[in-house]
């Protein structure tokens, strides 16, 4: 049974990765998880300089979900290369480094520096973080800027370039198409949805940043619809993310057109979730008599006319 798949020239041993910001840099969980069972690890977003992140409180639980406002706390690209990459190199899985910056130039500088390093297989670009130059509005909500950045980064690397899209836009398919046309090798979605929670005792927002990013099982139906919408319009691989905590969840994403998935928040409840999901998909394929998990990709039995445009109330 074939579980592997490729993006550009890089092979992933199976279709389950762990999502950026939910698995650290891999070393934190070495006692608990055999990462050889993962298709890949996506690192926490890296910026040029280290980032302290936002003040507490950074997380709040919500019904079947959680809000976070980490503020892209990360060690910075130099410390990453020095302290984290050596360990990641030793791991028997594909390493995807996620980049998040606050200006075009910073994105380019970080990618250029990382592209020279040994042991990085692919890049994922987090476009849903604030563009300081643009007054804090994220690139991710501006289609032409996202496309422009994709083109600039494309020119800088031969490695697979995955653009991670924000769901906080009206038509994610426009963004998907735009980054495909600008040379991205794959897209991944969804990043977190803007959300908020209030402590009615103190009348203060629970998060220090007022709003935060919603993740977890609660958002899975939204993520699935966004992935389905994006997969309709692009030919490059789509990586589905959002509330996945079981093989069944992951298979839903494959069926609507995702070539692979990432497991995020579920790692906080059980860091071995990704490995279990990969095993579960394999078992499902065997039971269904498939030769290649790829046969599931886009195998949804639905008539598409009768789709996203439909009224649902």
């Amino acid at each position: 049974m074939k579980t592997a798949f490729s993006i550009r020239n890089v092979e992933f041993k199976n279709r389950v990765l762990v999502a950026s910001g939910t698995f650290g840099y891999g070393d934190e969980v070495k006692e608990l998880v055999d990462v050889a069972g993962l298709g890949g690890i996506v690192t926490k977003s890296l910026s040029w300089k280290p980032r302290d992140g936002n003040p507490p409180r950074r997380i709040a639980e919500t019904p079947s979900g959680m809000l976070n406002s980490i503020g892209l706390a990360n060690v910075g690209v130099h410390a990453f290369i020095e302290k984290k990459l050596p360990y990641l190199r030793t791991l028997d899985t594909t390493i995807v480094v996620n980049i998040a910056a606050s200006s075009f130039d910073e994105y380019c500088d970080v990618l250029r520096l990382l592209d020279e390093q040994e042991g990085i297989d692919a890049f994922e670009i987090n476009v849903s973080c604030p563009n300081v130059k643009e007054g804090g509005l994220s690139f991710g909500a501006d289609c032409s800027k996202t496309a422009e950045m994709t083109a600039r980064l494309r020119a800088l690397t031969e490695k697979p370039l995955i653009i991670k899209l924000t769901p906080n836009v009206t038509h994610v398919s426009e963004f998907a198409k735009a980054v495909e046309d600008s040379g991205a090798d794959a897209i991944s979605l969804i990043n977190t949805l803007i959300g908020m929670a209030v402590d009615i005792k103190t009348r203060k927002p629970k998060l220090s940043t007022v709003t935060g990013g919603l993740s977890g099982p609660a958002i899975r139906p939204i993520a699935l619809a966004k992935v389905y919408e994006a997969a309709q319009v692009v030919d490059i691989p789509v990586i589905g993310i959002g509330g996945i905590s079981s093989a069944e969840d992951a298979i839903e994403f494959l069926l609507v057109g995702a070539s692979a998935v990432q497991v995020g928040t579920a790692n906080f409840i059980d860091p071995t979730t990704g490995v279990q999901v990969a095993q579960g998909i394999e078992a499902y394929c065997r039971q269904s008599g498939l030769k290649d998990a790829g046969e599931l990709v886009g195998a949804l039995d639905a008539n598409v006319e009768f789709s996203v445009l439909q009224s649902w109330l």
Partner: protein
Amino acid sequence: MRLQDVRIVSREQRAEGLFALSLDAREIARMTRPGQFLNIRIDHETSPLLRRPFSVSRVEGDTLEILFNVVGRGTEILAGKRVGDELNILGPLGVPFRVEGEYDLAVIVAGGLGVAPFPLLTGALRKGRKKVQSFLGARTAAHLTEKYLVNVHVATDDGSLGFRGTVVQLLEEFWNTEKPAKAKIFGCGPTRMMKALSDFAGSKDIECELSLEGEMACGIGICQGCPVERASGEKKYSLVCVEGPTFNSRDVILG
């Protein structure tokens, strides 16, 4: 660090809304040191979604004991568990209290459920031949448990038992009368109390270790969700789950 399903072998109500559960958790029990905690999966629903962190209160052979207060949905569900039920636990987590050191008298200061980690610490201190004095603060006598502690001094907000006032005020009185030398404070409780305790220790230049609480998602350093501000160093925050929960009071700034 282990992730395992364990069975509840006993359940006891110790005070108002305060419960103790013993878990049969061989490996984890052996590895646990005073001040470390478990991250417990309340049940297998997606809501409550996240694990809940609890200090290990005692270790008896293969069993671990946790002591907790019902403050919300998760602890409410936990309090409803029965002997024989299974729990999935992750632990032991965090940096233990530093028991060794050049002090003779260990002064334990606990506010409310801050008492949880101290039965286990008390045992270790006595093995280490330290004298121990324990100061407990609670809202009322009904909210208090002294079990497994020694030389206990009590303060209650309403004066229903012992000193009427905060446990830190009680501690100050003790200090002014006893003037202990070569002492070290171990504190755990609500943030406001931790701050007062840390100020007291600072003013008297007493070595003081605090066990901090705060929301956590993962408990193992992968979510960056549990920062506490550092007093110094180029890093602005430490992570409570992996760099704590125990900190030297000099190293952290409590909001």
